[in-house]
């Protein structure tokens, strides 16, 4: 009966206090939930933080995760973004090292192609390396990394984790 494992998204409003992040992340480790990414930042209210959480789970576990989060005194609101129209982006830096001129050209081309539906910029360049700054969906970032790793030997990657917000249409309803 177990339903499919898939990625699911939660937006979580929490008290902006010390220990809350530890408590939320501790729930995932303590109960062996498969956490993919978790980002946190303050909101328009300085005493409220918003987390964007991605987990891989089946339906039953996901229901349980939402309930467990709801139980926490510091959690103000749990929103399930899994099947809701949202805007989502993740920042990614990729440094491609030890490359020659021709390979630099190639990086530019790749940047160009990936620049759609987000933004990819070359923000720094050196004698034999290039730094890309990408603002794409998580999946697009995954694809980009896969490609870079296939084409080049020395790739250094830093990812920020995704942040997401509901589309205007849904939040107005």
């Amino acid at each position, binding site marked *: 009966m177990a339903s499919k494992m898939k990625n699911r998204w939660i937006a979580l409003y929490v008290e902006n206090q*010390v*220990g809350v992040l530890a408590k939320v992340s501790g729930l995932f480790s303590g109960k062996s939930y498969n956490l993919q990414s978790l980002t946190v930042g303050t909101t328009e209210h300085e005493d409220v933080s918003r987390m964007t959480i991605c987990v891989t789970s089946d339906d*039953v576990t996901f229901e349980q995760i939402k*309930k*467990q989060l*709801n139980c*926490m*005194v510091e959690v*103000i609101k749990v929103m399930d973004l899994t099947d809701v129209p949202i805007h989502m982006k993740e920042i990614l830096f990729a440094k491609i090292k030890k490359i020659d001129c021709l390979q630099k050209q190639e990086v530019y081309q790749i940047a160009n192609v990936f620049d759609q539906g987000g933004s990819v910029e070359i923000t720094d360049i050196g004698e034999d390396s290039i730094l890309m700054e990408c603002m794409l969906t998580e999946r697009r970032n995954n694809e980009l990394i896969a490609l870079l790793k296939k084409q080049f030997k020395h790739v250094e990657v830093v990812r920020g984790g995704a942040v997401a917000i509901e589309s205007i249409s849904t939040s107005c309803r």
Partner: protein
Amino acid sequence: MDITGRKLFVKALQEEGVDTIFAYPGGMIIDIVDELYKTEGMHVVLPRHEQALVHEAEGYAKATGKVGVCLVTSGPGATNAITGIADAHYDSIPLVVFTGQVSQNLIGNDAFQEVDIVGMTRSITKYGVTVKDRKDLGRIIKMAFQIATSGKPGPVVIDIPKDIQTKSGSPDYPDHVDIRGYKPNETVHIGQLKKAFKMLRHAKRPLILAGGGVNIARAGDLLVEFAEKMQIPVVTTIMGKGAMPTDHVLYIGNSGMHGKYASNKAISECDVLFSIGTRFNDRITGDLNEFAPRAKIIHVDIDAASISRNVVVDVPITADARLALEKLAEYADEPMDTTKWMNQIMKWDDEYPLDMRRDRGLCPQIIMEEINKAFPEGIVVTDVGQHQMWATQYIDMPAGKKFITSGGLGTMGFGFPAAIGAKIGSPDKPVVCITGDGGFQMNMQEMAMAITEKLPLVVCIINNRYLGMVRQMQQIFYGKRYEITYLGKELDESGKCVAETEEPEYAPDFVKWAESYGAKGIRVTSVDEVGPALVEAAKATDAPVVIEFMIASEEIVLPMVKGGNPISEMILK
């Protein structure tokens, strides 16, 4: 006029109506302790270990229905309390645990006796916080009491740095605080309840499974009323024991790993299972795929997260047990015809009743029966092990009698201190502690406190010279290799325990031990001494009586379901 944090602390307790506090001193709470010295009408009790301190507060809370209040120092004081806090968490007992903390300018320095107790207890508390600002102290204490006692009760840890205790600030203690992220469920979905009732009404073989939530909500009377009106039989979990009087015609018995045959059979054969106040712990369900395989399941629980977690249910109802039963009573019109079903259950019970062999000397069942006779009312508290299971099987529970045990965490060392706490909370009720020779030794130092508090409670040590519950598994599943379960001295040349020695030497001598504290000690070795010893013990007025019952090491708890097996597959002999 501003007052110090320590003064506000005491004021807060007074406004909360706290008259008893379990406290163990240390440098980081000495200021509060000093303030308590100056306070009239507060019973400050001194346990002898912080783990026991928390169990005492649990026993007190269970016996009185009030919140148990604990005060321990930072560092080792706080870490010692952790097992008790976890126990309260898994059995939903309302506690407010105050821990001292080093001054804020030292936090993070690995200062002397600094530990991050809030971090350490995060997964075993309902809420925990370090007070960082004197102006928040009143609000945080109020929050602690609100959270611990409302919704599904549980322990709250409030960590108070030393500088906060001495700093001046507002004298105000709020009546109520709004907590935006905390909304305990105080309603019941009528539509769901009607649906549940209809389903139950149409059942041929209906069954009610009552868990600890019914006792916590003090809804036993309503449960009985509903079951009677509808003529539906009732089984309980261990924590639900006492929700219905055990001699009631509709009461079958406990279910689960060491439940009654008829109870587990009834769960396996019923067509609608109305479960209330249980989280379907694995000790209750056994193999989940085979749990109540023929039944539609209705599940009432205050905790939304407990519903459809282990057992997928047909009708989920998030509600307090008392509220749900109050509403249900309105629908209960005419009795259902359950005669045939009841007869079937009786037949199962006749086939395999709970009954122990009586040819091995002092039989545990006889001890429990005599305890029933000597203590028909009051409070029975158990430790963890075989003796606990015998108590759950054979202790009678007339209406009003209380049964206190560590169910969720199964904490050895719980029983004796919890009994002390229960007696402090209910001095007029007889309190009997049923404990094992192993578990008793985990907190026996509390005898000092029982003596200084002049508590006439009766401690029944079921002495089998073994960590019996583990020995039982070694006996049945591990080829009788009794490694590290023998508590005595006798060893063979290879250093192993000698299992079948006639009169093995054991340690300690509990009778002499009790006497050394000024308590009374009685050793019982034969059946005809059991009753008189208990009658004698019941006469105690100002000190505990310890009765040591010498039973055979070979006694085992039956029936038994092997962990992970279906509850319908019981080892009966």
